[in-house]
């Protein structure tokens, strides 16, 4: 059984269709990648899964439980975490407060202290800046904070939404290394990216999203070699 299975999900904003019957499954312990251009509907998918935007159709099943229509805080408490596009840290809260907010969920409260230590170990930069407000951090540090905050919630699945967006190349490498490390520690990951090659290289399964529809699926390596992917992205 897949950890999460997204079945025929549709999302509409007013009259505009953002997602059209998208299906995708992520197996426990793997990295699945969803690639696609701007406006293809990647972010809509993540927000639909996490209950932030309502579904116009389809269903989402997590560990065999239908969570369609659940409010976002209950979905998060089930163990579905996300690192959102643009980081979405709390700029006037300190680094530590940001992290504590990640553990506001009932499932995570008890393990707050040890997890905090673990995250400071993982990202020493955050430990150095724990009293600083998040708004004063650099983009890369904010991304670390966003990942750390997500981990505070003790998720079983992390959805990454364009974690490389707007970051310097060296930082991008670091982010991808972190994702790989988390996966090696057993975390299930759904990675949504424009950074095609890097994502596909990491991913076990991958899918291409175009205009709200899944147009290609396969293994990461398979898609990486697929001319159709190259065509879609470079018109080669």
């Amino acid at each position, binding site marked *: 059984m897949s950890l999460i299975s997204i079945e025929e999900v549709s999302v509409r904003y007013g009259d505009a269709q953002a997602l059209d019957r998208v299906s995708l499954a992520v197996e426990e312990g793997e990295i699945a990648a969803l690639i696609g251009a701007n406006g293809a509907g990647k972010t809509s998918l993540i927000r639909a899964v996490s209950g932030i935007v309502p579904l116009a159709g389809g269903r989402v099943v997590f560990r065999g439980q239908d969570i369609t229509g659940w409010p976002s805080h209950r979905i998060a408490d089930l163990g579905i975490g996300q690192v959102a596009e643009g980081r*979405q840290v709390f700029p006037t*809260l300190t680094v530590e*407060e940001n992290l504590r*907010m990640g553990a*506001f969920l009932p499932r995570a409260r008890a393990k707050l202290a040890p997890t905090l230590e673990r995250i400071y170990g993982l990202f020493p930069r955050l430990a150095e800046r724990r009293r600083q407000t998040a708004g004063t951090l650099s983009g890369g540090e904010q991304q670390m904070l966003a990942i750390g*905050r997500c981990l505070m919630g003790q998720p079983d699945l992390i959805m990454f939404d364009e974690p490389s967006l707007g970051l310097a190349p060296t930082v991008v490498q670091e982010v991808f290394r972190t994702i790989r490390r988390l996966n090696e520690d057993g975390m299930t990951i759904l990675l949504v990216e424009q950074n095609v090659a890097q994502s596909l290289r990491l991913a076990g399964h991958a899918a291409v999203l175009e205009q709200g529809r899944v147009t290609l699926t396969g293994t990461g390596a398979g898609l990486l070699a697929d001319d159709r992917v190259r065509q879609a992205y470079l018109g080669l």
Partner: protein
Amino acid sequence: MTVYLDIVASGVLTGLVYGLMALGLSVIFGVVRVVNFAHGELTVAAMYMAWVLAGSLGVDPILTLPLIAAALFAVGYALQRHLVEPFIGRPEHEQFMLLLAVSIIMLNGLLLAFGPDARHVPVDYAYDSIELGPMLLDTVRVYAAAAAVALALGLYLFFRFTDLGTAIRACADNLLGAQVVGLDVRRLYALAFGLGCALVGASGTLMVLMRDATPILAVQLTLLAFIVVIIGGLGSMAGALVGGVLIGVSEALAGFVLMPSLKSLFSYGLLILVLLLRPEGLMGRRA
């Protein structure tokens, strides 16, 4: 010279209570991003509650403060949950009309219930003054201001050091971020609205020591709260207190040096200047 000391002291004391009242408006706006046009009506409702309790139980309003604050918390929570929530994200003028309707209903409901007469709550110390060196301080004002400072401090501690307070700040800071980490935003919004109203309840209770309760006071108090929070910075908690003191002192001085009837001219003048030169307010953050 001592007369100026008296004036400034009295302005500061009054200003602190103004500040506490404005704090309620500021908390609601800072988190929910809705401008509560029914602010004055809620304050007056609290004043009437204090009057009724004082009349029926014979208790000093300061002692009934927690009760009234709790009652208004419930009112605010329900208001947000049932009326305001669907209007989040709707155009500003629609939110304005909604709260205007609430304020019209409340104002006239109070008029129906209590009539237009001003209601005074008698306390033992209503006519007392405290001598402090050369200064003569109004006892009522000293108590009310002290209570206001204590409450503001409590609020600060709540927001700064409790997880719930931090969570409310997080909602204000980044709504999407709050949803992303799984905060129950709707409940936190209602809590914030309730908290804002609880402050209104507390300040109304203190206000009734200094002012008589009458429905028409509501519009004045709404405008006053707006002036205070805009000057201090809409959404900024320190700003509300600073704005309150600033208005309290400047009104007192303008009234003394020039003419009392021109007092509010200065408040509005100050408001206009702040709107033009520093619309985020003296203590506010630049958007």
